[in-house]
C-alpha cells in the first residue's frame, strides 16, 4: 500500500469514529441532557427552542418533605429487600451451583420463567390477593412484591458466583478434616464476597428503581421516588419529574462505573431489565 492511500484510510477511520461518536452522543446523551435542561427550566413554553428562564428553583424543592419522604421510603424498602433476598439467595445459589438434587432444573425454571413473561398481570393478581390479607398499600406489601424480582436477580447471580469458585478448594478443606458447613464458611463464602456485594448492589438498585409493582401494590399510601416522578409528570410538573429522574439515575451511573471492571457481562444483562 502506498503512503498516500494509507493516510487516506487512517483519515477515513478517524472520520468514521468521530461520526459514530457524535451520533451515539446525540442519541444517547441528548435525552439525558434535556432532563438536565428541564430540571433548570423555570419557564419553558412551546414553541420556544430554549427555556425562557433558567434557575435552581426546582432543585431547591428537593430539600422539602414531598421529595425527601419518597426517597427515605424507597431507600428503606431497598435495604429490607436486599437483606431478605440475599439471606435466601446465598444458600440457595450455593445449592443450585454445587448440589445435584432432584428437581434442580425445576427450581431454576421457577426462578427464571417469571423474567420471560409480562410482569404487570402477575402484579395485578398479587395486588388483589394483598387486598384480602390487608397488605395492599403497605410497606410490607411493596417489600414482598420487590422480593419477587429481587430474588430472581440474587439467586441467579449467586449461583453464577458459586459456579465460578473451584470445588477443589472445598475438597482440600474436607481432606484436612473440616465439616461441610465449616468448609463452606471458611473457604467458599469468603471467596464469594465480591460476588455477594455485586449481587446486593443489583438487588438494591432494582428495588430503588422498581415502578410497576410499587404503583400497583403501594398505591395510594406507599410512594417511592419512581412513583413520585410519575405523579409529578401526570400533573404536568415536568421540572419536578426531571429532577427526580436525574436523582434516580445516580445510583445506576455510579454502579456502572464501579462495576464495569468487576462484573461479568452476564450480570450487566440484568441491568437491562430494571
Amino acid at each position, binding site marked *: 500500500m502506498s503512503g498516500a492511500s494509507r493516510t487516506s484510510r487512517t483519515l477515513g477511520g478517524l472520520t468514521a469514529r468521530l461520526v459514530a461518536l457524535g451520533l451515539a452522543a446525540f442519541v444517547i446523551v441528548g435525552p439525558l441532557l434535556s432532563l438536565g435542561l428541564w430540571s433548570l427550566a423555570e419557564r419553558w413554553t412551546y414553541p420556544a427552542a430554549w427555556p425562557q428562564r433558567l434557575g435552581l428553583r426546582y432543585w431547591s424543592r428537593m430539600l422539602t418533605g414531598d421529595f425527601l419522604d419518597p426517597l427515605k421510603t424507597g431507600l428503606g424498602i431497598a435495604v429490607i429487600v436486599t437483606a431478605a433476598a440475599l439471606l435466601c439467595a446465598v444458600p440457595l445459589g450455593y445449592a443450585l451451583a454445587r448440589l445435584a438434587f432432584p428437581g434442580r432444573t425445576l427450581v431454576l425454571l421457577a426462578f427464571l*420463567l417469571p423474567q420471560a413473561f409480562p410482569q404487570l398481570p402477575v402484579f*395485578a*393478581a398479587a395486588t388483589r390477593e394483598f387486598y384480602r390479607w390487608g397488605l395492599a398499600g403497605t410497606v410490607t406489601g411493596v417489600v414482598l412484591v420487590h422480593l419477587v424480582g429481587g430474588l430472581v436477580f440474587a439467586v441467579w447471580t449467586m449461583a453464577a458466583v458459586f459456579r465460578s469458585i473451584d470445588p477443589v478448594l472445598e475438597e482440600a478443606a474436607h481432606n484436612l478434616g473440616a465439616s461441610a458447613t465449616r468448609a463452606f464458611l471458611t473457604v467458599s463464602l469468603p471467596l464469594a464476597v465480591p460476588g455477594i456485594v455485586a449481587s446486593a448492589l443489583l438487588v438494591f438498585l432494582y428495588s430503588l428503581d422498581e415502578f*410497576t409493582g410499587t404503583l*400497583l401494590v403501594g398505591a395510594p399510601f406507599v410512594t417511592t421516588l419512581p412513583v413520585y416522578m410519575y405523579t409529578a409528570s401526570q400533573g404536568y410538573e415536568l421540572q419536578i419529574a426531571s429532577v427526580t429522574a436525574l436523582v434516580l439515575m445516580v445510583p445506576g451511573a455510579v454502579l456502572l462505573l464501579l462495576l464495569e471492571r468487576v462484573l461479568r457481562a452476564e450480570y450487566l444483562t440484568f441491568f437491562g431489565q430494571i
Partner: protein
Amino acid sequence: MGVSLVASFSREGQWTLANYETVWRLYARDVLYTVGVAAAGSILTFAAAIPLCGWLRARAFGPVEFLLKVPLFVPFVVVGHALRVFWSPYLPGFATSWLGIAAALAWKHLGLAVLLLLGAFRGVDESFLEAARQLGSGTTRVTRDILVPMAAPALAVSAVLIFSSMLASFSIPLMLGRGSGAQMLMIDVYYRFGQHGDFETASALGVVSYLLAIGAALVYVRRLTH
C-alpha cells in the same frame, strides 16, 4: 400467573369464556397495535445495533461502546420521561405516536442488544474475518456475509427476548403519556384492573400477553436444559 389464568376463565364464580369475548370486542385492535409497536421497536433496535456492533467488532472504540451501554442502567420510567421531554419542545405529538413509543423502547433496549450482539460477534473466529478482508470485503460486507450468519442463533435469541420485553412494556408508554387511540396491552391491563376493578378481563388480557411472550419462555427453557 396461576391466579390470573383461573380468573381469566371465570365470571361471578362461573366458568366462562366471557372475559375473552370482552377482550376480543374491546381490545383486538390493541393486541395488534402492541405487536406492531413491539415489532417496529425491535426492528429499530437491530437496525442500529447490527451495523454498530459490526463496526465495533472490526475496530474496538471504547467511548462509543461505553455510550451504547448507558441505556442499560437508565430505569424504564426515567427513559419514558426523558424522551418525552427531549422530543416535546421540538416534535410535539411524536412521543405519543406509535413510532415515538417504538423509538423510546428501542432506545432502552439498545444497550441490551449491543451487549448480547457484540459478545456474539466477538465470538466469531478472527481468521474468517481476516480471509474476507484479504478478498477485499469492507466492514459492511463482513458484517452482512459473515458476522450476522455466524451469530444467527445469538441474534435470534436476543431478538425474541427484546420483542417479548417490548410487548410487556408498561412504564415507557405510561410515561410518554398517550391519552387516546390504541394503547399498549399493559396499559389496558392496568386501567382495566385499576380503574374498572375488572380483574377477570384484565387477567384474560394478561393471558393473551403471556401467549405472545411464549417465545421468550422457550428461550429460557432451552437455555436451562442444554
